[in-house]
């Protein structure tokens, strides 16, 4: 089955490290994906209003591009793109009235009924390799690295698009299993599935900064060396916002933030350029040097 890849706008801008590491890892793992030959922004948020069909056009066009390319699956690295596309796909499958409206509006496009399956990269790893299969490919176990998995919202909610739906009712474990396969020590913490404040970094900046301090402090209190996530918006809010944490009395605790794909690339023995660690804010070099995990230079 052919798998197409949808990057999304931010992976070509501030989150190049999420993409570079993810694609380098797939090449090493022998999982072939093809970037959609033509794509547009997914819209970043899924429209919730009953009368708003207009904003479903952007994600639906992306799904049509994947179908046109003959893909059975469309994979994303960005958690937010995953969420928007998976929900638009669900709409195409389950809401006959809106599907009809969309298909009639896009007369130049072939009709779409949700034939493609939208998956997140973590699901692809789990379903194609399995965690034991992934562990067998690890060349540089992340031994001694204590990592707090941060899911945020969009990988898990609403329940219909939960990437770890098999565990419905219990806490998600997909990132914990992923980290364990890489040889790292997963550190559960109470705010792993809570929101980073998302786009309210623009709407309510003070509340967003306070939120970042709360989440980071909870991960530090649980004993984590680093936070791992899959969303460029979470990365900005919980990572880059640490630069704005108050400095009085040493300020609130801080810790390195990495994309899950970067830890994957690191564990697969991919070089420094492939891991894209220079783009992380705050930096990760000191932590990785301390754990003897600095990737080899190109």
């Amino acid at each position, binding site marked *: 089955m052919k798998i197409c890849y949808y990057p999304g*706008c*931010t992976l070509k801008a501030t989150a190049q490290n999420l993409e570079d590491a993810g694609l380098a890892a797939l090449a090493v793992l022998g999982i072939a994906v093809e970037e959609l030959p033509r794509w547009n922004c997914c819209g970043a*948020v899924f429209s919730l*209003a009953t009368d708003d069909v207009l904003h479903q056009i952007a994600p639906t066009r992306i799904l049509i591009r994947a179908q046109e390319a003959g893909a059975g699956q469309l994979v994303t690295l960005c958690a937010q793109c995953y969420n928007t596309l998976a929900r638009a796909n669900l709409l195409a499958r389950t809401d006959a009235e809106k599907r009809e409206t969309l298909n009639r509006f896009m007369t130049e496009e072939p009709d779409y009924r949700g034939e493609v399956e939208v998956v997140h990269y973590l699901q692809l790893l789990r379903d194609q390799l399995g965690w034991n299969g992934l562990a067998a490919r690890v060349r540089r176990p992340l031994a001694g690295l204590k990592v707090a998995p941060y899911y945020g919202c969009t990988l898990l909610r609403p329940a219909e698009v939960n990437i770890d739906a098999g565990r419905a009712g219990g806490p998600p474990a997909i990132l914990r299993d992923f980290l364990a396969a890489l040889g790292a020590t997963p550190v559960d913490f109470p705010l792993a599935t809570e929101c980073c404040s998302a786009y*309210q*970094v623009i709407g309510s900046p003070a509340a967003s900064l*306070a939120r970042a301090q709360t989440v980071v402090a909870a991960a530090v209190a649980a004993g984590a060396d680093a936070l791992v996530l899959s969303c460029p*918006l979470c990365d900005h809010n919980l990572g*880059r916002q640490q630069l704005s944490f108050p400095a009085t009395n040493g300020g609130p605790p801080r810790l390195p933030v990495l994309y899950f794909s970067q830890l994957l690339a690191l564990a697969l023995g991919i070089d420094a350029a492939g891991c894209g660690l220079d783009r992380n804010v705050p930096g990760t070099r000191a932590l990785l040097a301390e754990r003897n995990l600095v990737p080899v230079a190109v």
Partner: protein
Amino acid sequence: MTVFLAIGALAAAAPRKVMELSGVNPGRCMQCGTCTSVCPMVEAMDVTVRQTMLLLQHGRAEELAAARTGAVCAACHNCEVRCPRGIEIPRLMEALRLLELRKNRDLVDPRAIPRERLAALPPIAMVAAFRELTA
């Protein structure tokens, strides 16, 4: 905020437009407050999520229009997955935002974002914020 409610005014009074836009009936809320307790943005809200549900049930359009609840909501869906009544609260929040946005009123002023902040923001933050908070 103190709001005085008429006894026996429950349910059917929910502003019709909010129910239309959201497809959700706030009358099903039993005021347990779980939504407020799990809301990551509650400290920035002048009216909590639970209070908003009550105002909706009583059709208090004026108080709802004055509140910043919808504008501060991050659409994280935590309230929805925890709600014991299974109410899709984020849809109600979106409807409350849209009531303002569709009057061509912005809930955030893009020109007020300092230039150096703008340069560091990921595209996803701007697309999402302007989609949710500008007309």
